[in-house]
């Protein structure tokens, strides 16, 4: 039996992996309908606007994630944050999910 603190940490890690997987799946799906060709290997450091997704594709990604996850972190901000890399993008969603769970 895991101590509660490790259990929570473990669950948090699973949630993060799941979230990133959802974002990757949605990204691939949106790229197809937006007629964008994604670069082969999207890593944490990939610059979003150089991933093959243009601004319309990016807008569609955010709209689709709102349907899949029920959140649009970009519409709720008082001072907007603009992610440059894929990792920054995932972090914004993770943060928004955590804020929503509080």
């Amino acid at each position, binding site marked *: 039996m895991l101590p509660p603190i490790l259990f929570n940490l473990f669950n948090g890690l699973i949630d993060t992996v799941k979230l990133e997987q959802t974002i990757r799946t949605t990204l691939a799906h949106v790229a197809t*309908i*937006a*007629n964008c060709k994604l670069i082969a290997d999207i890593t944490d450091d990939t*610059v*979003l*606007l*150089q991933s093959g997704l*243009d*601004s*319309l594709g*990016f*807008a*569609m990604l*955010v*709209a689709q994630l709102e349907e899949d996850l029920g959140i*649009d972190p*970009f*519409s709720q*901000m*008082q*001072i*907007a944050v*603009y*992610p*440059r890399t894929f990792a920054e993008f995932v972090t914004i969603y993770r943060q928004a999910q955590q804020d929503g769970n509080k």
Partner: protein
Amino acid sequence: MDLLRQLQQANYSGIALIDSEQVGYQQLISGALALRQQYPQLQQQGVAIRYSALPQFLTALLAFDGWCSALYLLPETELDIPEQVQHWPCEPSVIQHTTSCSQDTLWYLATSGTTGTPKWIAHTFASLSRAVKVAAAQSSLHWGLCYQPTRFAGLQVLLQSLLSGACISDCSSGDAEQRIEMMLNSGVTALSATPSLWRQLLMTGCLHQLPLLQLTLGGEIADQALLNKLSALFPSARLLHIYASTEVGVGFAVSDQQAGFPLSWLDTHHSGLAFKIDEQHHLWLKPLHTPDSNLARRLDSEGYMDTGDLVHIQGNRVQFLGRDSGIINVGGNKVHPEQVEQVILQIADVLQAKVYAKASSVLGQLVVADIVVTSHTDRAKLQPQLVGHCQQHLARYQIPTRFNFVDHLSTNATGKLNRKEPHG
């Protein structure tokens, strides 16, 4: 007074533009005078100019305004021009005599009409340059041109830069990262862009490196989060958002860094305009100058014109909600729902289609379609067919980003689609 004469009178001595080379105001003026000498056959004729580079384009505008009867600024997409209009550049003439008489030139810009098909709209130089601010602080600015100067938004920036004696560089091509690099390299200090383009520039993570003194947002509704972000990055810069009604041909700028405009403007004149809101929540404007004759018939008894823009009052601000006509604004690109519906309805299995806007935190609005299909339709197969068909017949920003299959679409008493109903 024509553009060339205005610049001759202003007698600016600085740099007018930085391209692959630097071109000074006096150099532009002498280039334009040389063009008039070289092409006397174009005097009092209509000329169509395609944009390739700033030095040639600016010299041609200076030479031909006040010299030719009409200037057609050719858009990137093909659009027919009247037969007698000559394309520029062309062969120089062998005749070498010119008369010095000046004439009012009509400027033609391509605009998507109500059907979505581009058409030519005539402007006078006076109306195009009405919003230009000339002040000492303006002349030291270096503008980054974010839109082709054959488009209304680009031309406005070009004229602002020229008439105020500022400098301008073309940053209108490439993705956001490439544009920022061009702006950094040429030392841009002033930018005018749609909120959507500002968001993309912010996403590069490099925007703060630009020493911006003036930031203008236009062409879409400016939201508070974006205004907050920009004012935090550039606390001492002038930050404006512009409202322009192409319907009414007037506009105003809001400089207090708050979305919408102050409620108090409804009681006082501002920017040479009087404001009112009708029962349908439309914003009406009354220009203090006499409107162009083609607009005069649209005035109400008090002299106001309907902008067709929906507004609502929130505290002490009037906030914009979008167009009442249902025109969708995708990152500054206007989409006519009817045009998209016509394309979707060309597919045999689609019985009804309703196209509308969905709010987007990235591009302002996105296009969405609700469709009714025949009962035997395989929806999984139809989806890619719809996307493919739209890709063939529509520009990317016009293609619905989502197709919702619905059982029915409500129509009003006259059998038209009910566009005010909540969407499916």
